[in-house]
Structures are given as structure tokens and as C-alpha cells.
């Protein structure tokens, strides 16, 4: 069976599809919020990951009582992908601004890396949705 697709609808659940390359049979994996949380707590991703781990990725993504000024991400948040530095659409900036500052720098870097790796010149909410689904960024 080959991993085919992963979806994170944002309600704590996860859906993944796998398909047999020989017979074409497909099976789905659905996890409830508790199961999703337990796997996420291990710091691993169903379906694998294509991006390098970010420093304190789990802590920054999961802690809800962190200080707004706990991290000074600096220039790292612009990302280090292959392509040019992407622009952020006003809608994407607005959405990013809603991310808690505790994790915002890391999230911004992940999206920027995603866009640069794919030669995407402008990050829009649609690009963010695609990245979220492809990279398994539940809640980001």
C-alpha cells in the first residue's frame, strides 16, 4: 500500500488514504482527536515529512501558555528554500497575524520554505492551505 493523501480538516481529526499499486484497492485511515493528538505528541507525522524539523517544533506548536515575546526569530523566518523570497498577499498576512506570536516566526518560516521550494512567488491563503495539508501542519 502506498500513502496517497492526507487531510487535516482542522478539528483535531486526520484522514489519510492509501492505495495498493497492484490491485488499486484504496483504504482510508481516520483518527479521532485523541488518536491524532497522541501521534502528534510523539513529534512524528503520518504520511512522512518533507521539511526539516524546526527547533522546538513540538513545544512551539503545542504550548498554549507561552509568552508572546519568548522567541526572537529574526531573519530565520524568511526561510531558506531554493527559489526567490516569496511575497505575502494581504489576506495571507492577515491570516498569519492571527497565529500566536509564540509560534508565528516558525510558522512563517515553514510557509516561506514551502513556497521557495516550489517556486511560488506569492503566498496566499490557498498556498497556506495546500502547505498545511501537504506538510501536516495541523492547527497552523
Amino acid at each position: 500500500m502506498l500513502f496517497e493523501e492526507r487531510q487535516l480538516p482542522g478539528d483535531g481529526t486526520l484522514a489519510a488514504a492509501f492505495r495498493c499499486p497492484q490491485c488499486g484497492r484504496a483504504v482510508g485511515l481516520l483518527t479521532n482527536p485523541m488518536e491524532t493528538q497522541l501521534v502528534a505528541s510523539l513529534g512524528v507525522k503520518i504520511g512522512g515529512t518533507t521539511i526539516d524539523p524546526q527547533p522546538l517544533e513540538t513545544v512551539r506548536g503545542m504550548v498554549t501558555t507561552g509568552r508572546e515575546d519568548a522567541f526572537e526569530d529574526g531573519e530565520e523566518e524568511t526561510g531558506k528554500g531554493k527559489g526567490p523570497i516569496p511575497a505575502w498577499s494581504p489576506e495571507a498576512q492577515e491570516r498569519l497575524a492571527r497565529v500566536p506570536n509564540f509560534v508565528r516566526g516558525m510558522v512563517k518560516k515553514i510557509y516561506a520554505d514551502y513556497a521557495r521550494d516550489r517556486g511560488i512567488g506569492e503566498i496566499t491563503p490557498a498556498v497556506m492551505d495546500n502547505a498545511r495539508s501537504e506538510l501536516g501542519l495541523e492547527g497552523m
Partner: protein
Amino acid sequence: MPLNIRTYHELTEPDRSGLPGQIATQRRRVAERLAGVGRVVAAMSGKGGVGKSFATAGLARAMARGGRAAGVLDADFNGPTIPALLHLPVAGCTLRENAIEPAVSAEGVRCFSMGLLLQDGRPLGFRGPQAESHVWRETLEAATLREFLADVAWGALDRLLVDLPPGIQRFQELVDLLPTPPAVVTVTIPTAESGAAVRRAMQFARECGAELLGVVENMVDGAFTGRAGEELASEFGVPLLARIPWHPTPDVWEGVAGRL
């Protein structure tokens, strides 16, 4: 017609999730980050209120004053006290070369702690389903320990002291994460009750393959009576490193630090 269900071990294609590989990568990252650390020493007691954090900070400061490179990982995520004991200023953590820079005390002790990240007065809260949160919370705290080990730029250290919370769970996680079990310095107060709890922790550490460096008996000239430190040291065949009074002078810690 019966379904032709294939089970996990009948899968014939590579597992793209690669969960064992992801775990192995996590462990490798810990080992690589700690490659420059001479020795990881866990400060352990198995119970609360004996002064583990106080002793850990005193030992780290003494090491730094003696010219040794020392770091403290505050593994008490729910009651972090090390930043205050090291007199660290509140400041943002800086990201550099894919790692977080540790805070550094005026004496040169490198430190990382949940206390540097949390809002004042707020408990450590995690995102996730709150009902039955005990199912995942300890796993998440173990992941936090892994990231504090692997993602902080500890650099070259003679000693990395790990200040453990009460109990043995965090020590077990530390053993699981490190390439080899940490050395252990045990802290107790003089009472028989403390000795009974600390004995279990020392036995557990020994069963995990950890080297017991010795016992520090804390708070010896106050209201507590007993000889728990001496008895534990004798029982386990390890040195009683020091008997620490309520108001120790720096030289008391320096005497112990040199033996770790």
C-alpha cells in the same frame, strides 16, 4: 464473499510515513547535539521538596566559577525554578543555525527551561483534547524533553546537569532519549521518609544502568532529623558527597562540583 484483508506485515511497499525512521532521526539529533557534552548528570531524588533544583543550580554555578563549562536543562516543565536560581534575566530566545541559543547566567552557566517560555503565573498548557488528557500529556512532555536536548545549542560543555521533577518518569524518558544512561547525583533530606522515597529512585536508576555518583544530603542543620544521606550512600556503595546546611557558602558547592 470473504474480504481479502491484508495486515500490517503483509504490506509490500515502502512505508512512506516511516515512523520508525522519524523516531531514529529524533534520537540521532539528540546524540549529535550532545556530542560536545562531556557528561550528562541527572539530579534526582524521586520525591519533591528536598532541594534538587537548589542543589543543581549551586553545583552548576560552582562548576562555572571553577572554570568548567556547565549547562542546566530544567526538566521540571510544570514547576521550573532554575532561571530564578541562576538569576537569569527574562529575555527572548534567539534562533541561530537551526537551534535555540540557551540563556547564559552572569557566571557563564548555560540554561534552558520552560520558565523562559511561559507567561508569568500561567501553568504549562498544551493544545489538544482536554478530556482524558493524561493519555497524551506525558508523551508530550517527553517530546518536550527531547527538543530541549536536541534543539538547544548547548555547545561544548564539561557537564550538562538535568534538573528532574519529583518522581521517576522524567528520568525514564531521559534514559530512553540519551545514547547512554546519564550519571546520577541523588539529593535527599535527612529524614527516614525521604530516604525511603529516594532509595526507590536510586534503585530504579541503577536498574536503568545509570552510574550513581553519590548522595547530597540537604537541609541538615534545621528541623529535620535522621541520617538518610549516610545510610543511602552506605547501602548503595557510593560516596556521601556533602551534607548541605540551610545557608551553604559557595565553597560547599565547589567541594561537591569537583567530584562530578
